[in-house]
């Protein structure tokens, strides 16, 4: 099974508890479990935000409604507008730009560039996250975005899609640092976390990427690798 190393929240709490040399088991350490869950969530949020991790990216295909500028379906598993990396219109090879705040495109008059604008959080269809201006645009959108699994930290059985060693080390480091009773232990966990993050970043290094997406094919004389 792909990504079999990933663990759910319960398993991550157990792994973190072990690193802290606490007694392990569901509901055993009732006073450290909530803190550890919060720490795991914090580390996940920080680590996921570190970059566009390829295994968390997906491309959704959606149709514009042609009247309000929004797509006709919610963007499944895409949590916020900032999780969207790029939006492509029909067969275009360049992504749609953000609507400039200094231009009055919403008036719908005069020359204007097709662009996207985030929906406010209280919009009736906020699950679609953005709209296209002009609102009457019709066609298909390809949305490249980061997945956030549904109920990721509210349902302890949902798999948290990230390096579990990194999450456990980070959470244990956070907990031990808050305790402050053994600096050596804190330093060890911190080092372990830093190493895990470094390793996670390095694991995507040597894959080739397309420098100019408008070209029809890869250059044959040379290749550009993806590096951070």
């Amino acid at each position, binding site marked *: 099974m792909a990504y079999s190393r990933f663990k759910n929240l319960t398993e991550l709490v157990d792994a973190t508890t072990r690193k802290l040399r*606490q*007694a392990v088991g569901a509901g055993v350490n009732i*006073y450290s479990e909530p803190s550890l869950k919060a720490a795991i969530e914090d580390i996940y949020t920080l680590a996921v935000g570190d970059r566009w991790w390829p295994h968390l990216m997906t491309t959704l295909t959606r149709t514009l409604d042609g009247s309000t500028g929004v797509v006709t379906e919610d963007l499944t598993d895409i949590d916020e507008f900032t999780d969207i990396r790029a939006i492509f219109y029909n067969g275009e090879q360049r992504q749609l730009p953000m609507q400039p705040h200094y231009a009055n495109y919403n008036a719908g008059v005069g020359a204007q560039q097709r662009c996207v604008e985030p929906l406010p959080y209280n919009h009736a269809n906020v699950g679609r996250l953005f709209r296209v201006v002009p609102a009457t645009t019709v066609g298909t959108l390809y949305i490249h975005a980061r997945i956030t699994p549904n109920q990721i930290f509210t349902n302890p059985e949902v798999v948290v899609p990230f390096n579990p060693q990194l999450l456990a080390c980070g959470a244990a480091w956070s907990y031990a640092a808050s*305790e402050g*009773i*053994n600096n*050596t232990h804190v330093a060890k966990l911190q080092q372990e976390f*830093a190493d895990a*993050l470094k390793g996670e970043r390095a694991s995507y290094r040597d894959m080739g990427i397309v420098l100019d997406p408008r070209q029809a094919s890869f250059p044959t004389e040379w290749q550009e690798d993806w590096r951070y």
Partner: protein
Amino acid sequence: MYGSDKPLPQTNNVKVATVRQFDGGWDVVDTDLNLSSKYAKRLRNMFRAPDGSIQLRYGTALFADFTNIGLLDLVFAKYYNRFIIVVDRTGLIGAANGAGTVYLIFDDEIASQQSVGLEQWLPTDFVSSSEFNGELVLCNGTNKPLLVKKNLSVGYLQDIPTSSNTYVPIARYVCTHDQYLVMAGDPAAPSLLHISNKGTSGTWLGDAAPNDGVQFDLGSFVPSGSSEITGIASFRDKLVVTFEECVIIMDLGNYIEDAHNPIVADVIPNYGAVNHHTLQALGDDILFMDIVGVPSLARALISGSITPDRKSQLIDPAIQEQLAGLTTGALREKVFGVINRRDNQVLYLVPDASLEQDITERVGFMFTYLKKLKVEAWSEIRGWNWTCAARSSEGRLFFGKGPRLFRYGDKQDPVYADQVGYQEPFSDETIFSDNTGWTPIADADNSWVSGLPIAFDWELPWSDLKKRGNVKTSYYLGLDTAGDAEFAVDMFIDNMLYDTSQTGEPFTDGEIFTDGTGFDSELAYSPALSMDFVAGGAGAYGASPYGHLYGDGRSTADERLYAWPCQFKLMKLRVHGATRRPLSIISMSLYHAIGGIRRG
């Protein structure tokens, strides 16, 4: 975000405070804000065990049932010649052998077979006994005394040469001292001491010679309080006679020519006894219960004089509170004590009402007395309502209630629940509020089903971890325990013991009544931290039957850490629960750090 990789110096700020010395026992006198951790503010159904731990008291198991031979409510039990002799409220006398087989040994029919017109005792609420020359004498203060012989034949005590009991006194109390049978509690002469002829039990003043029987009125020796004798006991070479507010020490065996001339050796004021059955001789000491608490008498090593001491000083208010509402009659008849030689304990049981039909519980005050180890520790025993007790020659304890006798557990033959073989709890392990359960029980032989859970509660004093002004941060809790019972540990902080915002305990699900109150008028505890554990001897999966922990739970045998995060200046630990399994707490450790003086 991720900090530097630079290693930090190896330091460990955590300190470990361990409480493991519990010699003080229950103490209600001293404020628990300034009390050593060897004392307990509450020690209910637990005691300081000989191994130094705090141990759950043993339970009781059905031993003998006298229902089928017609006995009703037992008021007296006494081990005699491999049998336990019992007397019920109607005056019937029965016996149970070591296997629990019961026999009726005295009733109207048996009495009439001995002599036409002879009858059993009248209904009685009080019986005392003493062995004399291998025979057991029973007194009740209403009828003439009875004599139980080794073959369990029972008859009225009489002067053998004349076969008459005309001069045998009617008395409530009897004891054997220095070849004399001594009786007191004569309803017609409450301050009079009857002393038998030397070497015989049935020959008393007035019987034919040879006879040195004598009577001795102690009324004029009593300096204060009632002159009614409340108990008599033999203590080494002295006869101890108790009154409400004084104790008289007597020497017997002093003769002027041929006349026995008892001597009053000493009068000790301000110490007394409420009941003959509270006098318990321990060898070097004799203990009894008066209206203030439990005094003792000890004989001085060199001079041989008798000196008093008040053993119950630390729990006197609790004893006084329990005795306060009782009538004089209840004090004389329904309070009793028994020695548990196997565990070096004396147990006093005091009812919560004066009339038998109103009594729902007899609260026990248990004194653990290990003289060599200088341990004198009290504890409170709850959930019992025994009406009598007996101790076998092997030191086993038996308690009576209704027509049944129950055996108290001990280390050699432990029992971990109450009334095993007779009652059982609901499926959720709860019982009725009067400390009873279901009867009859489904499976008497299955100790996992039969018997009532023993509720226990141990509350330690407040502790500042020797730094009163500093804020302490606790991180982890560690426990050393034995047994396999489940129990809860609470920690209270900063002198906040109760939740003063609500009156009464909530339901088990935490809910209270819609008017904002809970059960009882007691304030609910308000722990900052609370966690359930299972003692270190609990087995793994499969070791426990259905309905128990399946080897699950927080085992205290696990040396990994249990998070126990809290900040405080003062802390108090409490261990409590209800169980039918064994439990001993050997030590409790708090992993903590000392901080500054400002509490957040």
